């Protein structure tokens, strides 16, 4: 198996590794870097549990090879917490609105909503739900997740 050198940033940290050409980004993150917060739910790009930010945009890390992200800047759920290590506004809104149950889909949900709230600080419920179609959740029925996203947007806008 051909090996390739990759150098990239993950959650602000510089990483250099030699990887197999067929190694997926999610297996790279979970296996090589031991960042196990990013989850594998379907390996065919539908469920969204593996969603990460590549250069600020959401991507399926199960459908991305590690060698494709050479020189990229990756953010995973481990990179979201606030500077003091506590929950950030979106994460806190998830807890307050019961936006998670088993927590398996949650990291992917957080990444998709992080992108949304950056692009659109005041989304409508419809816009939130539209974005969330890229992430499946079997536990919550989405109500708490939608409420958390809208609550977080409000808190970010008002600084509350």
């Amino acid at each position: 198996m051909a090996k390739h050198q990759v150098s990239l940033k993950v959650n602000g940290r510089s990483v250099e590794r030699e990887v197999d050409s067929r190694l997926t980004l999610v297996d790279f993150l979970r296996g090589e870097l031991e960042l196990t917060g990013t989850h594998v739910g379907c390996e065919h790009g539908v469920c969204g549990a593996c969603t990460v930010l590549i250069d600020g945009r959401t991507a399926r890390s199960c459908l991305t090879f590690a060698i494709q992200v050479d020189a990229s800047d990756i953010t995973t759920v481990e990179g979201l917490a606030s500077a003091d290590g506590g929950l950030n506004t979106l994460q806190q809104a998830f807890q307050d609105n019961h936006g998670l149950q088993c927590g398996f889909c949650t990291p992917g949900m957080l990444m998709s909503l992080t992108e949304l709230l950056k692009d659109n600080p005041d989304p409508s419920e419809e816009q939130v739900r539209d974005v969330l179609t890229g992430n499946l959740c079997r536990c919550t029925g989405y109500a708490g997740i939608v409420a958390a996203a809208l609550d977080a947007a409000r808190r970010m806008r008002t600084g509350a």
Partner: protein
Amino acid sequence: MGAKQFGARVSRLEDSALLTGGGRFVDDTKLPGMLHACFVRSPHAHARLRSIDASAARDLPGVHAVFTADDLPASVGGNRMPMLVPNPAIEASLTQHCLAREEVCYVGQTVAVIVADSRYIAEDAVALVDVDYDVLPMASNCRDAVKPDAARAHSALANNIASTFRMGYGDVDAAFASAAHVFKEDIWQHRGGGMAMETRAVIASLDPSTDLLTVWSATQTPHIGRRMLADLLDRSLESIRVIAPDVGGGFGPKAIFYAEEAVIPAVAMLLRRPIKWIEDRREHFLCATQERDQYWTVEIAVDGEGKIKGVRGKLLHDTGAFVPWGIIMPYIAAATMPGPYVIPAYGLDVTVALTNKVATTPVRGAGRPQAVFAMERLMDRVARELKLDPAEVRFRNFIQPEQMPYSVGLTFRDGKPLVYDSGDYPQAQAEALRMINYEGFAVRKAQARAQGRFLGVGIGNYVEGTGLGPYEGVTVRVLPSGKVAVATGATNQGQGTRTTLSQIVADNLGCRIEDIVMTVGDTAAIPQGVGAFASRQAVNAGSSALMAGGAVRVQIVKLAAHVLGVSEDEIEVEDSIAIARGGNRPSLTFRELARLSQGMPGFSFAPGQSPGLEHTAYFTPPQASYCSGTHVVETDVDPMTGAVKILNYIVAHDSGNIINPLIVDGQIQGGVAHGIGNALLEWMKYDENAQPLTTTFADYLIPMATDVPTCKIAHIESPSPLNPLGVKGAGEGGTIPAAAAIIAAIEDALSEFGVHFAETPLVPERIVGALRTAGAYEKLGGLR
């Protein structure tokens, strides 16, 4: 007294780790020297296994071993797996081998296992295993499978009947003979899978220095898993530890003990290396148990006022190739059919058919959604035929609250007479109707129709047996640090078990909730356990938490009174401190008490004192407690596309006293989402050769954020008299009546075309097809 936790919207203790990537799911564990497994699975639904040549796979660099049934120890490789819930009505008592011997009976059945340096290499090697199959005729559709000349699902069996039984009471024939009206419905229901976002997962590791086998499994039932492993591996219970760490959703299929859960530990023992197997989603579609087809032919007899005289019929249930969980689902379905209604006579003949598909076992609701759908379709039929309002027909037939406890006349799945313990069915329906403004619906419908939109409303009522035994235990122990260790056999796949049990312990022990250190899903933490299914943990483990917390509080009071030199009734326990009420209020912290409770070497205890501050309670319920409720749904149906939009979803829910409304609301909302999937989307399709056709989330649709509205939920609280908390289960009620209410609402929306539906999932092409047959498009042609 600190703030009471029971009944409060307490934020979940589970959340912080899960929100920051700090969850610990099975696949997150990495052990030194760990190898990775992948299974060779049958590509055929039914075939004779002639030979397996794994030499090329064994030669692949990075492959450590390939095991077939003959390569495993005889106890694992030779025997069929134990049946979890046997029943004398099961004629074909069949479970599968851990790895197939001689015959494979469904697509995906485990044939061999490959162990390699990585999952990538193991998957490469799967393609190199040459299995010679002799394909046999297969039973695909359960309606064909029960015919006398059908292809047999198992070569060794004379037919495909796994079980037949009759459930009923009263003089059904007389009831029908004297009825003013009799109406009949043929109903097809399909439920699909649990589809937890985390697939199944197993890691096994044998520690040679202690001979302890540790198994991490994404299971709902680690204690059952340990018992099964002790049986299959011929080991003591003490030499096996099963850990269900964070588990990414359960919904029933993870309550089963699977072949892979036996094979991976067996292989880890043979190779003396830790082995990891993570199911991929395709395997989950093929091999994780499902619920699937049920065909109901049912009749209802009513008098001229729409009062029920009797219900009778037949139920055909597809159990798949094996019966690992017995015949629980069709049994529950048959017992759930009478629901909240007074039915003087009832009879249902149940046939359980074997087919060449993966076994069916409980999925959230477990046979109850089907029964409720069948019963509620009959109630809607009565309303339509007698030109009565569907809500009114139901009001006329409800069991009244003053009839509680109400004996239905059947025996439930727990072997006890089916007696509803409490509930107020008319109140729940009245509340749900009020919340949706049912009286104003006709006006809304007319206004929408004037704009070319088609609105409908539907009602679903249900009664659900929850909180099943035999028991679940809780240990409460005050640690030398003053923290409170709580251990339980209850498990957590997202239900917030840690939070709700902590609330109960905090109240009943008198500690701060943040002082509790909880261990769930670990057989090392408590000797006996059962696990999560049948909405049973709040009743069983919750009651044990109350009992154990209370018992340790008594120990604390005794010890503190003795040490402080006051009487026991002078002692208050709150916020992890015992305080004497009188004098200058001297106190002892839990930390001090825990140390005192150990005594001093060489000194005797005071009379009545026992070592440590610790108690284990195993609550065992006398019978099931019966949750109930009403769902009312308003839909907007587009006849041109068959698209269904749910405008308003109301739930009036009665699960007795509520431990944490935040969590119960979440359970209901999530359950409704699953029910919406059942009603409109989820269809595990097989072709005539029993080949699965829907093996990705692009083919098999589960509800997305745009499919599920936020429900409006009302709580009716009829406490259960059967447990000290007065609680009932809440995990499945959201799913159970959903399809009944949604399909009724779709039918109502299209009522002007006279189309009727008696199936789930009701997919758009079926709606359009029915409208086409009814000539709807000719009528609509003038409009559009």
